[in-house]
């Protein structure tokens, strides 16, 4: 009986975290923007996942020395190009298309991993400082102000220059610099949620702080977290690409979009495909996530769902 009733509700509205997410995914169909974003993102993600099976060439090493002799072949529609390398080759004779396909994997990894880190730091700090207030809040607020005063790119550059460049370090550094929006938003929401009467009701029933945070506050911030995180993934992908572009991120010979952009910039006038296609791929990835994030925000916005 209980399950029946529960089953009945799930399709008609939002609900707990999980069902909230599920139902908003269901409602994505209502938002054209979100729909496009979802399709683009899912497509690109699929391409990334199946890259090893569909990429015409391996992303890095190949059969030597034929490959090096193939350097800077243009895309197939230009004279000199061939369907062997549909989007042309780079200076090492590697297929641009294959590198992009593999590069997508890194792009999503570089987007999602730091965001997970940043979200867990930011949400924790935001909950704690908003809920307990007092000196904890004051301290967290000053830390937030401090982090906001330092240009994060500069900070990331400095730290990466110190701890060395690697994919893991890149993810770590971006992660620890991106938590501020989570902390700020969640803190603000916690401040207002903790004054809601349903929290008071829990307190009036003797619930512990942990229980209140877990059951009253966190679930009600979840949709904001989801929205910030989605949009943040897009931002982080761009930041990561920028750092790699400056030479502080992923190292060659990995197939990485930022790295390809950096490599391709010297050849924009002579072998444009080397820098332009990775740029386009990056843009599509980011655009897809941005659309998706916006759509989710619209859907979760009470104004919209009224």
């Amino acid at each position, binding site marked *: 009986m209980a399950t029946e009733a529960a089953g009945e509700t799930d399709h008609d509205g939002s609900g707990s975290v999980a069902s909230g997410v599920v139902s908003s995914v269901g409602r994505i169909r209502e938002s054209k923007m979100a729909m496009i974003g979802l399709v683009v993102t899912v497509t690109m993600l699929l391409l990334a996942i199946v890259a090893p099976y569909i990429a015409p060439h391996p992303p890095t090493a190949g059969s030597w020395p034929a490959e090096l002799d193939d350097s800077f072949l243009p895309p197939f529609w230009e004279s000199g190009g061939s369907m062997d390398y549909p989007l042309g080759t780079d200076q090492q004779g590697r297929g641009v298309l294959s590198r992009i396909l593999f590069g997508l994997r890194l792009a999503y990894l570089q987007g999602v991993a730091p965001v997970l880190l940043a979200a867990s730091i930011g949400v924790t700090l935001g909950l704690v400082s908003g809920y307990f207030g007092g000196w904890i809040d004051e301290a967290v607020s000053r830390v937030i102000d401090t982090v906001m005063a330092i240009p994060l790119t500069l900070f990331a550059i400095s730290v990466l220059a110190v701890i060395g460049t690697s994919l893991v370090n890149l993810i770590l550094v971006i992660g620890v610099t991106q938590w501020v929006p989570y902390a700020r938003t969640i803190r603000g929401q916690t401040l207002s949620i903790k004054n809601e009467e349903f929290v008071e009701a829990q307190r009036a029933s003797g619930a512990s702080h942990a229980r209140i945070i877990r059951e009253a506050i966190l679930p009600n911030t979840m949709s904001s977290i989801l929205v910030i995180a989605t949009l943040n993934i897009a931002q982080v992908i761009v930041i990561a690409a920028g750092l790699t572009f400056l030479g502080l991120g992923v190292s060659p010979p990995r197939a990485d979009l930022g790295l390809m952009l950096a490599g391709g910039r010297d050849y924009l006038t002579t072998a444009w495909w080397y820098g332009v296609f990775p740029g386009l791929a990056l843009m599509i990835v*980011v*655009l897809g996530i*941005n659309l998706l994030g916006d759509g989710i925000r619209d859907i979760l916005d009470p104004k919209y769902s009224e």
Partner: protein
Amino acid sequence: MNWFRYLLRRLGQYVVVLFGVSLIIFVISRLSGDPVALMVGMDAPEELRESIRSDLGLDEPLIVQYALFMRDAIVLNFGESISMAPGEPAGQLVLSRVVPTIQLTAVAVFFAFGIGVPVGVISAIRQGEYADIGGMTFALLGQSVPSFWVGLMLILFVAVPIDFFPLAGAGSIRHLLLPGLTLSFFMMASIARLTRSNLADVLDEEFVKTARSKGISDLRVYGSHALRNAFIPVLTYAGVQIAYLFGGAVITEQIFAYPGMGRLAIQAIYSRDFPVIQAVVFFAAIMVIIVNFTIDLLYLKLDPRISYGGDR
């Protein structure tokens, strides 16, 4: 004198922030390995290294080093550049680059607001119409394209074919246009979208209906009532974004060979010139704080509630 207290309180918070910044800077720079290796020739004798080390205070305990660092940082003394311009005071080196970067960011902010706000306003007023869809598509793209790619494309398709735009350097308005546009791209797009959504929200507010009910013109309704209220969150956003802008200047300056703080920072970091790194980050933080303080002042002007103990 509530506004005065408000400003004092903000200033107090900024002092704390500067202290935090200095601590972060110090930690980073001391983690960054031995600068002496870069200062002297590759085969310099050990005694020489030792003596340089003690000249720089590098042989003191960390806490003492930090105290020394703070003492000097207060008067903007960050020591001498080690590898980029040996002997030059790092502070001065950075100071000579501050103006171009301020110019660049100012141009970027100008573009961001000058283009972003009108686009946002038009979109909000023409919700759902083609102007709105066009404006917001542009804004969404703007948020999705890495600014360095924008810069490269601008070089390729604008600067190279059109003689008017110099490819590198600084010194004139012409030098500022493309880098400024590149740097402002993301912020411009964000401001357009933020303006639109805020204005749309404000237009739904009761007081806008009140204004309409008075029989005043639409221009006044939008200008004097709606936009001013919608602008407050945009300003807040700009305050948050300004640090990103200074960060973004690093890449932009690199691409356009623009001699600003950002490029200096990159060079300093590549050559581990930590006094210069310290100075750059510190100056950048100070500029962020100055901008934010200016925004605080603007708030006082724009939002009277602030001066009466409100917070933003």
